[in-house]
C-alpha cells in the first residue's frame, strides 16, 4: 500500500531522513519509535505527502504521491497531527464533521451516522455541543482523532497516519485509541503510528520500526525489534525485556535511575 524508496529529506543542510526504504501493506499497523528528534514526524509528513524528499519518494498503490491531487489524497488518507490549532472556538461536532470535507458523495443520513459512530468510539459524543476550547488536552485529542477517523470511516482500504495519537490521553483512552487503530488495520486499513510508549506499541502494533538519527535501525515484529540491545542503541536506556508467556508480547521494564543533585545543579 505505502512504499518508501530511498527517501532522503534534509532541511537547511541538516539531514533529517537518510535513505529510508520500507513498505507497509494493508492490514498492517506499523509503529514508528525513536528518540526525540529522530525524524519521526518528518517521516510521517513525507508519508502523508506534505513534504517531498530531496531524493527518493513515497508511493501509494505504486503511484508516486506527488502525482495525486490534494483532494484525491484526502479521500483515502487521513492524518492526525501532534498539535492542532484551537484558536477558534468551534463546537466539537462541527470539528468532527470537518473531517468529511472532501467526502461529498455520501448523503446526509450516512454522514450523520459516520459522525455519530466516530464520536461514540472516541467517547466525545457527550461533548458534541461544547466548544473545543473548553476541553482538556486529552479530550481535544480525542475530538481530533474522531475527526480524522470520520474522514475515512467508509473507505475500505484507507491509510491512517497517527503522529503521537495518545500523548495526552489517560490510560483508558490510550488503550482504546490504539485498539481502534488495530481493529481498522485488521479490516484492511494501512496504519502507521508514531508512539513513545514501548509497551503499548508492543501490544497493539503488528510491526515496529526503530528510527535513529533519520535512519532505520530495526524493523520487524515487536519480539524481534524490542530487545534490550536495540532499545539501548536508540534510547540510551537500560531495560529488561520479558516475553509474556500468556500473550507472547514483549514487556519492557526500565528500572529507575538516580541522579545525584550536585551532578546537575550547582546552586542547591
Amino acid at each position, binding site marked *: 500500500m505505502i512504499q518508501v524508496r530511498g527517501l532522503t529529506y534534509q532541511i537547511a543542510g541538516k539531514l533529517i531522513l537518510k535513505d529510508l526504504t520500507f513498505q507497509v501493506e494493508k492490514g498492517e499497523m506499523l509503529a514508528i519509535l525513536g528518540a526525540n528528534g529522530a525524524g519521526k514526524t518528518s517521516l510521517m*509528513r513525507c508519508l*502523508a505527502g*506534505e513534504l517531498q524528499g530531496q531524493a527518493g519518494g513515497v508511493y501509494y498503490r505504486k503511484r508516486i504521491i506527488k502525482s495525486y491531487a*490534494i*483532494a484525491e*489524497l*484526502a*479521500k483515502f*488518507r*487521513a*492524518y492526525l*497531527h501532534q*498539535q*492542532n*490549532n*484551537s*484558536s*477558534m*472556538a*468551534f*463546537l466539537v461536532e*462541527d*470539528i468532527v464533521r*470537518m*473531517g468529511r*470535507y*472532501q467526502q461529498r458523495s455520501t448523503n446526509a443520513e450516512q454522514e450523520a451516522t459516520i459522525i455519530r459512530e466516530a464520536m461514540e468510539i472516541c467517547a466525545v459524543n457527550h461533548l458534541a455541543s*461544547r*466548544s473545543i*476550547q*473548553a476541553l482538556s488536552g486529552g479530550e481535544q485529542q480525542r475530538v481530533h482523532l474522531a475527526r480524522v477517523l470520520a*474522514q475515512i470511516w467508509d473507505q475500505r482500504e484507507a491509510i491512517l497516519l497517527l503522529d503521537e495519537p495518545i500523548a495526552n490521553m489517560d490510560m483508558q483512552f490510550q488503550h482504546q485509541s490504539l485498539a481502534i487503530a488495530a481493529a481498522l488495520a485488521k479490516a484492511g486499513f494501512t496504519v502507521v503510528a508514531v508512539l513513545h510508549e514501548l509497551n503499548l506499541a508492543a501490544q497493539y502494533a503488528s510491526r515496529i520500526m526503530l528510527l535513529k538519527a533519520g535512519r532505520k535501525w530495526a524493523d520487524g515484529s515487536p519480539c524481534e525489534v524490542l530487545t534490550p540491545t536495540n532499545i539501548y542503541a536508540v534510547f540510551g536506556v537500560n531495560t529488561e525485556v520479558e516475553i509474556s508467556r500468556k500473550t507472547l508480547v514483549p514487556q519492557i521494564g526500565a528500572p529507575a535511575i538516580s541522579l545525584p543533585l550536585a551532578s546537575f545543579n550547582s546552586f542547591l
Partner: protein
Amino acid sequence: MRHLTIYIILIIALGIAVIFSLGLGAVQISFQEVLQIFGNKLGIASPLKEELTTDVLLIIRLPRVLLGILVGAALGIAGAAIQGVFRNPLAEPGLMGISAGASLFAVLIIAFEVVYFQSIASLLGYYLLAIAAFIGATVAVFIVYRLSLFQGKSLVATMLLAGIAINAFAGALTGLISYLATEQQLRSITFWSLGSLAGATWTSIYAISPFIMTAVIALPFYGRPLNVYALGESQAVMMGIDTGKLKLRIIIFSTLAVGAAVAFSGVISFVGLLVPHTIRLFGGVDNRYVIPASALAGAFVLTVADLVARILIPPVELPIGVITALIGTPVFLYILMRDKSKMLS
C-alpha cells in the same frame, strides 16, 4: 436556527436604518414621500409635488445610502474573510496594507495634482483620486503577498509582519508628503484619511458595485474551507484543501472589495475588525455564518454611522471614520466584557 434569527434581525435593522437615513437630513423626507417617489419611478404612483424633495432623495440621499451599504458590506465581509486567512480574530484588511497603500496614493494625488497630474486630472476628473487609491491598495497587497511567499507557499506569519512593515513605510511616506502639503491640501488629506461618504454619486455607485458585489457573492462560498483551515494549514491540506489557492483567492476578493471601498470613501477604520468579531460573539465562529452576516452587519453599521455623521451637528458633517470608532469601540468593548466568560464555555 440561531443564525437564521440573527440574519433576520440584521436585515430588519438594516431596513430601518436605510429608511431613517433616506428621510433625515437638511431636507426632511417622510416615509410616505419616500414611498411615493419610488412608486412614481416604478410608474405606480403620481409624482410628488415638491420637485426639490424628489431630487434630494434620488440624486443625493439614495446614492449616499447605497454607497454606505456597499462600503460597509465590503469592509465587514473582507474583515471576516481576512481574519479567517490569518486564523486570528485581531487581523483586518488594513493589515494587508490595503488602507496604507490607498492612503499613500491618494495623498500623492492630493498633494501633487496641481504640479504633475493636471493633464490626467482633467481627463479623469474627480475619479483620479479613487483610481489612484485603488491602485495603491492593490500594489500594497501585492507587495505584502509577494514578500510572504517562500518556496511557492505564502507564510501567514511573514505576511502579517510584512503587512505591518509596508503599513509603517507607506504611513511614513504619507506623513512626509502631508508635512509638505499646503493648508488646503492638508484639509483634504485629513478628510480623506478619516473617511466620508459625501462623494456619493450614481457614477461612483456604478463604479464600485461590480468590485464589491463580486466579493460579497464569492466570499461566502469560502466559509466551509475556511472553517477547516482554522484547524491549521497542514490539517486543511490533509483534509483536501489547496490552502495556497484558498488564501490567494480570498486575498484577491478582499482587496477588490476593500480597495474599491477605500477609493470612494477614504479610510474607515474599525469596521473590518469589530464587525466580524461582534458577529462571532453573537452566533459562534462558524465562517459559513460569520462571512455573510458580517456583510449585513457592516452595511448596517456604516448606514447608521453615516446618518449620525450627517445629523449630529448640522450643517457640519463629521468624518465617518470618527463616528465608527467613537460608537463602535464602546459598543464592542461592552459586548466583549459581557461575553468574556461565555467565550470559554
